[in-house]
């Protein structure tokens, strides 16, 4: 492909403050085309703010972001066409059926009418939801909703899939299920995946490269193995890497973390 050299995401000198609180502080980040890139850190590290600027939800003030060479501030609509986005909250529409949720996104991304039905069926099938497709989403479990959201994000064949804490609030089986589906689709079509998480063990297992973010800054960047090898700790993990770079435990999320998890789990009940 002609643009394998063009990075999927290029973030330069990005800064964003909410009042006096600097959420993102001079971040540089490059996500190469085709990789699974993990943005790691506790809640409040600035991950979600960075994602919101990349997805055009939050205006880019200082710095710049390019998605496959397109400037996010100037080419919002064009950028949105390239992105599939799964937000942190379970956000499929509970009053619609699974199929209706996916079909809406097929329409919003101009999937041609002639293939809309078949593509919708295909992603629903690939996410293991064929039997539940015509049920109202309010009857789905958390893991099913997450997979439905993946189907919504994938129906447009995005070149860049952005997942914000995709496994938060899910039980271990559902978490594994979500990662497996992502890996399957990526293996088949080579899309780029940008994922935020604060589960270090998941990142270690599933990401090609990771960036550790803490208090708005990138503290370390590399493959999980590189980062762990650089530590000089026997049988180290990304948790150890994080502690080494920040002097902080990852469980810094505190009450906000608990609340976000509860809200996610409690929705649609």
């Amino acid at each position, binding site marked *: 492909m002609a*643009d394998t050299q063009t990075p999927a995401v290029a973030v330069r000198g990005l800064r964003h403050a909410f009042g006096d609180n600097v959420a993102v502080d001079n971040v540089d980040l490059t996500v190469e085309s085709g990789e699974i890139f993990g943005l790691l850190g506790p809640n409040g590290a600035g991950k979600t703010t960075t994602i919101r600027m990349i997805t055009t939800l939050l205006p880019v003030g200082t710095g710049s972001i390019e998605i496959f060479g397109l400037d996010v501030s100037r080419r919002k609509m064009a950028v949105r066409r390239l992105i599939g986005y799964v937000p942190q909250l379970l956000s499929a529409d509970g009053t619609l059926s699974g199929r209706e949720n996916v079909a809406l996104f097929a329409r919003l991304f101009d999937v041609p009418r002639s293939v809309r039905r078949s593509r919708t069926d295909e992603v629903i099938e690939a996410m293991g939801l064929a039997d539940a497709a015509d049920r109202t989403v309010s009857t789905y479990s958390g893991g099913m909703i997450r997979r439905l959201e993946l189907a919504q994000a994938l129906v447009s064949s995005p070149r860049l899939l952005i997942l914000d804490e995709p496994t938060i609030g899910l039980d271990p089986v559902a978490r594994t299920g979500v990662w497996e589906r992502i890996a399957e689709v990526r293996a088949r079509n080579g899309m780029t995946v940008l994922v935020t998480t604060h589960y270090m063990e998941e990142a270690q297992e599933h990401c090609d490269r990771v960036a550790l973010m803490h208090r708005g800054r990138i503290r370390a960047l590399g493959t999980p193995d590189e980062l762990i090898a650089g530590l000089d700790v026997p049988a180290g993990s990304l948790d150890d890497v994080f502690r080494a770079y920040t002097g902080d435990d990852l469980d810094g999320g505190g009450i906000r973390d608990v609340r976000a998890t509860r809200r996610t789990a409690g929705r649609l009940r």
Partner: protein
Amino acid sequence: MSAPLAAPPAGSADLLPAEPGFGSAVRILFARVGAMCLVELQKLRRDRTELVTRAIQPTLWLLVFGETFTRIRAIPTGNVRYLDFLAPGILAQSALFVSIFYGIQIIWERDAGVLAKLMVTPTPRAALVTGKAFAAGVRALIQALAVLVLAAILGVDITPNPLRLLGAAVVLLLGAGFFCCLSITIAGMVLKRDRLMGIGQAITMPLFFASNALYPVAVMPGWLQAINHVNPLSYEVEALRGLLIGTPARLPLDFAVTAGWAVLGVACAAALLPRLTR
């Protein structure tokens, strides 16, 4: 596996899309409005209970207020019976009450993450807002049907002319669409559900009482007549009354004003919508 899970074809127009021209921008806007309207209809199909509970209030207005004031003849409506005069006003009022709380739905969708996800799709904000305005209009129409049936049972002389009924439906749709957009605009300013509910309640009653829904303009004091002049609800009611009951109305002006407010409402709501997901 084919289409969606296969690699995007190299060199397709999707890869590095050119800036769309005006023609295709308009086409996309219409396609998106269609998609959003469709999904709102799918949602409405599933909650019919609310449609029934929401018909209670207009029923009370017609049955209790209407019947009583028809009997005591306190409000001079010329040679039109008061109940006949009131029925179109109640139609417009029930549409207003349905629509004004759509902003709360938008805030709920924001809190649930649904709105952010829609905002990241290549969908003009005006299309997202128009979908909601359409949904408010459809709800208002369903409720209007209930009110009209009741009015007919109470002996209100409603036109059987299908063109006039269609005209009334269009006016109602535009009116409901405007108040829905007003509500979303306020939601975009206050950002919080509680404050929106307070403001919603604070403006619906004044809008209603400062209109010609309950009494003719002629009996209003001068200052109220002035407010009535700029109140979109009054133009909506005048058109509905003219079309359904046959009272004198300035139909072209009424349509123009109602449609103008609706377009302005979509523009304002679309401009403020992104504030909700920041």
